[in-house]
């Protein structure tokens, strides 16, 4: 199963490198929104809750773009049939798609985070970076697991562009709350981190639950 997942993931990354359909669009969207906030809020810098909320809501909305495109090649070019005709566990498709979405999000954040610091944070991210990276990794894992599940579900429907965000965003509310709450103290100008462990624990629990749930139900999503 892991070998097949690796094969599918390599194919997905190769397709993304060649077509540049998802990551550039997600990155451009994120940068545009940060620029809009920079001018729209008309403030020199953000901190605390507002900064944290802007960071995470923007990343979540960017993830919607990635989720909408996650199964595009499979749907439009018969990839799912090709996979179902091979003697591989269907869970490998879920693992590959989750891993691809996770890597797409990481690629977006490599560009988006410095831009966020530059455009919207006064003192910059500086010393908060190690904790913020831990939050980003756990947040991205949750988004990737739920995103792959929702993308597979939406791929089988006619109104897939509508279904993906409508299903994805409510399911990601716990991720948003935990990530925003965990990030908020890191972006405060006056105080250090607090309650970080509690929110990271909640994120870890969410990730474990949704990875297990997705693995359990993914097979049924591919049924005719």
């Amino acid at each position: 199963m892991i070998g097949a997942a690796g094969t599918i993931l390599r194919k997905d990354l190769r397709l993304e490198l060649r077509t540049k359909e998802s990551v550039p669009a997600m990155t451009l969207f994120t940068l545009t929104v940060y620029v809009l906030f920079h001018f729209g809020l008309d403030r020199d810098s953000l901190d605390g809750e507002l900064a944290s909320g802007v960071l995470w809501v923007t990343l979540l909305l960017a993830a919607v773009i990635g989720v909408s495109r996650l199964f595009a090649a499979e749907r439009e070019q018969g990839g799912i049939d090709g996979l179902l005709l091979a003697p591989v566990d269907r869970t490998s498709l879920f693992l590959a798609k989750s891993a691809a979405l996770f890597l797409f999000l990481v690629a977006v954040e490599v560009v988006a985070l410095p831009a966020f610091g530059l455009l919207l944070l006064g003192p910059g991210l500086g010393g908060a970076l190690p904790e913020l990276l831990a939050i980003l990794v756990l947040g991205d894992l949750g988004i990737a697991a739920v995103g792959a599940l929702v993308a597979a579900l939406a791929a089988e429907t006619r109104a897939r562009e509508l279904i993906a965000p409508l299903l994805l965003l409510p399911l990601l509310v716990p991720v948003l709350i935990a990530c925003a709450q965990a990030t908020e103290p890191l972006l405060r100008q006056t105080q250090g981190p607090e309650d970080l462990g509690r929110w990271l624990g909640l994120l870890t629990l969410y990730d474990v639950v949704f990875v297990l749930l997705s693995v359990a139900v993914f097979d049924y999503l591919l049924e005719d």
Partner: protein
Amino acid sequence: MDPAIELDGLERRYGERVALTGVTVSVPRGATLAVLGANGAGKTTLLRVLAGLLRPHAGSARVLSAELPRERWKVPGQVGYLGHEPLLYRDLTGRENLRYHARLHGLDGSRVEKLLAAVGMDRRADDPLHDLSRGMVQRLAAARALLHDPPLLLLDEPRAHLDPAAAELLEPLIGRGSGRTRVLVSHDVEGALGEADLALGLKGGHQVFAGSVEPAAARELYR
């Protein structure tokens, strides 16, 4: 020896619409079954059921000794499916596509190179599919269907888009001489009956005949 395919009262629906009903046929191993019928008769649905891509809703279906849908997991890896869609990625090259499918089947690259040469695509193997003609893509799709050397071939208009030279090139691989059990969907009634051991006629999802049939009777399916 078990027949390669044994269907008894097979039925498949899409929602309320019955796409196939009462299909009863037995195909010995190594034989060719020609499936005939007008557009919408249920031919592609039948192939997809046999490939394990669709589950039957009633009746019984055995494919290479696997009872469908209960033992559907046994079917992938045993059938070569060459349908309307090539099941290849347009932005990958022919070689990349075949290597991807080979790895999914647990095969190494040598089989890929052998098949690229066999379908006459070794010189264009590093071109992305969107730069190739539909006939070239069809040759690569045939190579994909044959990668794992399947004992059963499910062929839906396999010579569509092929020029005579390419059709001749593929003949030993997917034709009667391939030695495999074949289910062949075609609108070329005479051609299909000429290379088949038995025929199945479908009209509106219903079986009209199964066994041997005269071309004139088969052509009635299209009236």
